[in-house]
């Protein structure tokens, strides 16, 4: 009997392994190997085109601290990502609360909210690029609104906000769906008993809804933060990083280093540094929300 059970267990383990091995192999081949290779190349002066590369130790990482373009991009991405996170978290929660309410046409509104998510970033960037540079200035000339007669993408002070608006417009969809799913997991009886205890709408929101939503909001925060810190498509299509580098994001900086300056080694060092920053922030954030979540 014992032998038979042992055999069954062994067979089961072999089956499990057979299922897992392909996934592990793919993960190693397409994730671990490129990552390790990338870290290795970040320690070289590889141009990307030459088959030869010299090992230069941590020089690329040392150069990061004196690189004005990197600092400028890091600063841009930091405030851009922070604003994006704040706006997306607030708006997605508000929208989710709205479409979670028992209103007429709820399904239609939910569908509409998700619509921007199915379009590609490049397409959206191109459409808004035309709106900003042609449609709005033309309308502004007709209506005699001086400020908008020049595209918002033409000024260093307004171009980042032009891109941020587009990012928020498209980036709201998934977080709203996630928060909506989170709202639907809150037990009705808790809300009802809070109501019976005399808790108002605001109290119910801050003491029941938010604690229950924390795990979802934590995921939204990380996803949005990552999206903000790695923003590329919108800036590439709408401004090419301009004017005068005002919208040159970290990823765009990495792209320029790799494909224009042919400093792939240094570009990979920057990419590694961005990854470390993101991992650090995510770790910190998860640690904090783990302590405060309800379940």
């Amino acid at each position, binding site marked *: 009997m014992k032998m038979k059970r042992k055999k069954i267990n062994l067979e089961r383990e072999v089956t499990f392994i057979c299922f897992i091995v392909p996934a592990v192999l793919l993960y190693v081949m397409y994730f671990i190997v490129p990552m390790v290779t990338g870290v290795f190349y970040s320690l070289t002066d590889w141009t990307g085109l030459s088959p030869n590369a010299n090992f230069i130790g941590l020089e690329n990482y040392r150069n990061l601290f004196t690189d004005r373009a990197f600092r400028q991009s890091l600063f841009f991405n930091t405030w851009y990502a922070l604003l994006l996170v704040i706006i997306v978290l607030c708006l997605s929660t508000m929208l989710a609360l709205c479409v979670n309410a028992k209103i007429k046409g709820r399904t239609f509104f939910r569908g509409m909210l998700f619509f921007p998510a199915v379009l590609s970033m490049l397409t959206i960037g191109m459409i808004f690029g035309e709106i900003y540079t042609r449609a709005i200035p033309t309308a502004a000339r007709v209506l005699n609104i001086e400020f908008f007669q020049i595209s918002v993408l033409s000024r260093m002070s307004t171009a980042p906000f032009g891109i941020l608006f587009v990012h928020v417009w498209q980036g709201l969809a998934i977080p709203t769906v996630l928060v909506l799913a989170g709202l639907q997991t809150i037990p009705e009886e808790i809300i009802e008993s809070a109501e019976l205890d005399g808790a108002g709408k605001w109290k119910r929101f801050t003491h029941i809804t938010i604690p229950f939503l924390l795990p979802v909001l934590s995921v939204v925060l990380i996803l949005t933060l990552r999206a903000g810190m790695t923003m590329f498509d919108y800036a590439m299509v709408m401004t090419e990083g301009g004017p005068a580098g005002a919208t040159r994001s970290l990823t765009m900086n990495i792209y320029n280093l790799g494909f*224009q300056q042919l400093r792939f080694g240094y570009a990979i060092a920057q990419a590694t540094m961005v990854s470390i920053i993101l991992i650090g922030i995510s770790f910190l954030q998860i640690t904090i929300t783990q302590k405060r979540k309800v379940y």
Partner: protein
Amino acid sequence: MKRKVIIAALVTVILLLLAACGNGGSDSGNQDATAEPVELEFFLIKVQALGVHEEMQQLFNEEHPNVTVRFVATPDAETALFARVAAGDIPDMMNTFPAELIYRNMMDDGLFVDLTGHSMLGNIQPAVLDLAEHNGKLYALPIALSSYGVFYNQDLFAEHGLSVPTTYADFLAVAEAFVDTDVTPIVFFDRSAGPVGQMIERVMSILHNDSDTLFRDIVEGREDIWARNEVRALAETMLEIRQFGQLDQMGTDIDQAMAEFVSGRAAMMIGGTWHTTFFLDADPPFDYSMFQFPNPLGPQGLPINLDTSHSIYVNASCVDSALAKLEFLSRTEIAQMYADVEGSPNIVNGVQFNTVPLREINDDMNNPSMNVFITPVNFWPPGMRARWQEYAQLLFMDRDVDGFIRNTEGMLHEFYD
């Protein structure tokens, strides 16, 4: 016995494959229609020439029916090519710019087939071959040259009784003549990073024909950027001509600028001969031509560059067939087809220059008394032009000439040190 049969069969197949590939290399052309099929990938950076390449391929197939050439033409083609080279996925044939440092580094790395001594080169102007040479060898077949200047709408010039300017003062006067009319004197495209970089680089080369040496001298302390007047003149010229531009220059990209010029809403546009391909397709057609960008500091010079050139990857799937294809492209009648569509000044012997709008600039390029020089960006460190373009955009907005010179000085130290 069985093993011997298998080995013999394998050897036969390999020999057949080698023979099939080898058939393509004949200089004379005609090839056995029953030869084994060969497929080559031809990566185009000059994507606007895709159509004429496909037409030429049909003629090539009459001689080489077994050689299929698959053309790849993607947006931002040069970046895509670099990405493929970085990944080791190198096309069999590709457009290259053999005077540029990046391509010379690739030549040093042994990426391209050495074409030195091949008979096809005998059909190319020898002076241009010298420009394409690297360490005494040729790794590319140059077909066409490019130059830079100011496109102008001939009808609008005639309407306003204007003639082609030859000095910088004339140029400003011509632009002035369109002020207070419905026509924008000069259309700019400051949103497009690449073309802005090209503009400052080419105008800088007109101000100083060997800016690479000047920049090295500045970095090594032999020259003082503040004492020299070229960079200051560049900044002041860029600002001065922008007074004649449209309202939202930073919001206009190169495509929008070309549309403005083609439609007659702008009288002039600064650009390269390669833009002609787009203008030739204009519907309705319009009369335009090009003149040299006048040097604000005096003596005139005309920057040129090696434009369309083709190279073969050293490990191409069939080098002989690729050589046959290059030989075909170097023939006068085929190069004529290319020149008539692509429009750039061609350097294959016997090709007639039929691109009427570029006749003036082509005549200047062939004028022995003209100071024609290869644009120094070929020798600049990779990526420097892209950085300078950012400082140029900043200049266009804050109009701070000293700030531009300061940024340029910092950039030179960053890239040349």
